[in-house]
């Protein structure tokens, strides 16, 4: 019998980037990279474990924009071309490094990886990787949860409750349609929580969400088990708190694994290093050097003189680190079980893209960890939040603190000098969308199309990714453009609808460009029955 439980949560998200108007769009590559380096390797890990009969549990949030991209025909077609070209490059690399023993092994590794990725993508799952995640969920080893429809930042959008209803409602609808059942849990974007917003989660049948450690620790009433058991909000929805120890182990510069000198170096990509004429077909068509995904060096140390990557050594380190992680969890659980009167739960959420994209050996680490937990000990067991709630259906009730897992722990990242200007526009647009939803409760024909598209444009404008990019400041031009474009398109549709001058041709253009959520129910934006606190004006 285990003494305690570990819930590994992978949060997979990409902003919705799809540009049918351009044959090559740089930012779409990030989707291709994530698929090749993270999602497919994770699928391979799950396949391997299932084939070997290993019992495990992973929780994974796949955000609606990501689900939409994985199931989009255009992006599937573009990925197919991308991986085919990557295999071509890998084959050239195998040839080029033929006489170089330090790189040839690594070149062969990439070729094999990309061929397997292509087979998995094309043959095994018919170009739709969501089929894989659904399969693992149906097998009972993976629990997929949802997230805000466009990863909107709830505490700041929530001035207009309708926005939260739409973010959650549209997400739940999409999940239900694509996964074949309703979602049980939700990953709040950035763990952004305001006391009380769980009532909206409850409206859509969601049973649990996550907050950062201090969100739980600073709850209205002291949590008996700290972050090591969930609490119920007054709505009855459960809140799980992040464990800081496991985050540090994996992410910390000083204490974490991914910086190990034997691991693959992210920055030495051949897209930047090799002869221009050779690499030209595999970088940006206008000649701009970009990442290809093929890198030959290991971190080596704090030096620019990087040494050649050795896949065997990388794999060996991943095993060591998996063992170390598990050992620390055993000690942690033993400590907690000793002072608790129930089995403690450690909740360890990570950005999914850490595994494979940033930390090349991440998926290997994960697989080793899962196997070791299953076979090498019996102190801890993997579990999903849903299962823990079944084991412990009675929990303390309190109100978690408004919080996020962003820098400084509250809302500042998304509300500061670079991005605060968006909120008057987002709030106004939400108000207008509610107005439209109330005016036209039963729309048909072009009116229905326009209302749906207006809802899409507003949701896309609400993406917290834009505010985040504006804050980090790196090439924030794209983020500003997306915000302004979607708001502009929304306002145009609002006026066309309100004044009965819908332009079907413009509508078709927008439907083609911003095609997320084909079945969107605009009525999720219907006005809420507000409680006190409405603005009063003279």
């Amino acid at each position, binding site marked *: 019998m285990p003494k305690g439980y570990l819930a590994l949560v992978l949060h997979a998200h990409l902003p919705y980037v799809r540009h049918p108007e*351009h044959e090559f769009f740089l930012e779409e590559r990030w989707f291709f990279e994530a698929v090749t380096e993270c999602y497919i390797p994770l699928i391979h890990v799950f396949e391997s474990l299932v084939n070997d009969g290993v019992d495990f549990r992973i929780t994974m949030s796949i955000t609606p924009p990501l689900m939409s991209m994985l199931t989009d025909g255009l992006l599937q077609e573009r990925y197919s071309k991308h991986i085919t070209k990557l295999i071509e490059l890998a084959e050239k690399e195998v040839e080029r490094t033929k006489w170089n023993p330090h790189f040839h092994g690594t070149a062969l590794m990439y070729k094999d990886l990309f061929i397997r990725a292509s087979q998995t993508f094309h043959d095994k799952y018919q170009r739709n990787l969501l089929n894989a995640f659904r399969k693992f969920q149906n097998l009972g080893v993976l629990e997929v949860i949802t997230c805000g429809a466009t990863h909107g930042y709830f505490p700041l959008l929530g001035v207009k409750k309708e926005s939260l209803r739409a973010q959650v409602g549209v997400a739940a609808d999409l999940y239900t349609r694509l996964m074949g059942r309703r979602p049980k849990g939700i990953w709040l974007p950035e763990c952004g929580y305001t006391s009380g917003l769980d009532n909206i989660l409850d409206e859509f049948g969601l049973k649990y969400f996550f907050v950062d450690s201090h969100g739980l620790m600073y709850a209205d009433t002291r949590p008996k088990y700290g972050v090591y058991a969930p609490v119920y909000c007054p709505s009855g929805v459960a809140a799980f708190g992040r464990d800081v120890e496991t985050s540090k182990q994996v992410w*910390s510069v000083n204490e974490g694994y991914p910086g190990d000198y034997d691991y693959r170096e992210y920055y030495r990509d051949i897209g930047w290093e090799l002869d221009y004429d050779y690499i030209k077909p595999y970088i940006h068509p*206008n000649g701009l050097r970009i990442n290809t995904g093929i890198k030959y060096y290991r971190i080596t140390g704090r*030096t*620019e003189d990087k040494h050649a990557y050795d896949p065997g050594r990388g794999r060996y380190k991943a095993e060591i680190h998996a063992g170390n992680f598990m050992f620390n969890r055993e000690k942690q659980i033993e400590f907690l079980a000793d002072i608790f009167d129930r089995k403690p739960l450690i909740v360890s959420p990570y950005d999914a893209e850490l595994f494979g994209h940033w930390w090349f050996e991440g998926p290997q680490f994960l697989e080793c960890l899962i196997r070791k937990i299953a076979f090498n000990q019996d102190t801890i067991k993997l579990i999903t939040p849903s299962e823990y709630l079944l084991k412990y259906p009675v929990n303390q009730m309190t109100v978690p603190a408004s919080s996020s897992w962003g820098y400084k722990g509250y809302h500042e990242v998304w509300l500061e000098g670079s991005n605060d200007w968006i*909120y008057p526009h987002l709030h106004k647009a939400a108000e207008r969308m509610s107005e439209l939803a109330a005016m036209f409760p039963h729309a048909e024909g072009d009116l229905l199309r326009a209302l749906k598209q207006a809802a899409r444009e507003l949701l896309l404008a609400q993406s917290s990714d834009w505010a985040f990019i504006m804050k980090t400041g*790196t090439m924030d031009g794209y983020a500003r453009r997306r915000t*302004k474009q979607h708001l502009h398109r929304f306002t145009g549709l609002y006026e066309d609808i309100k004044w009965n001058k819908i332009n079907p041709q413009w509508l078709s253009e927008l439907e083609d460009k911003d095609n997320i959520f084909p079945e969107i129910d605009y009525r999720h934006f219907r006005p809420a029955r507000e409680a006190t606190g*409405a603005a009063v004006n003279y």
Partner: protein
Amino acid sequence: MFQKTKVKNELPSPVEIGEDNFETAEEIFPIIEFPPELEHEHVPELPWGYDDNKITIMARDPEWIYAYWDISEERRNSLRHTYGPGWDNSLPVLRVYDVTGISYFNGFNANHHYDTVINDYAGSWYIHVGVPNRTYCIDLGRILSDGTYIAVARSNFTFTPRNSISNNVDSEWMLVSENERKLYSRISPLTGTSSGELFNRKMH
């Protein structure tokens, strides 16, 4: 001992891996660049405001509130007309009311309030209320030269988040104090940072 790949062209120098830049913010999100074609695409500007005659507030963290407002030209003229020449000499303020625990706020029954002087050109402001776990309401107002206060618009309510462990203990959900001490000393300090933030960011 280890040979590097032969490179014909000039390389951009690789980023040095150090404590400060193991992971950069832009790597979590795409390095956003526009292909040349899009440079010429028209980016629409958003309106300056919506003339709503409203003020909206949002708590940013335990000590700060953000407010934005938009008063129409028409409304300002009407106020100017009502209050005469004294209006333009009046002081623009934000009146911050602590309305914690007040179920119906009538403008006069706040726990306390204070004024922050702003300026005529501002359309938004960050107010340092300085106290977590309180509920606030804010007026956009003016103080005439004779001290009279005029409310121009009143905001929604917002509340500042908690930033400490509560002293409230649920008697049905308690560990013995020795165990609680052990638990809390293991959990602290709470860093409140995302998985992506625990790496020091490279500053741009």
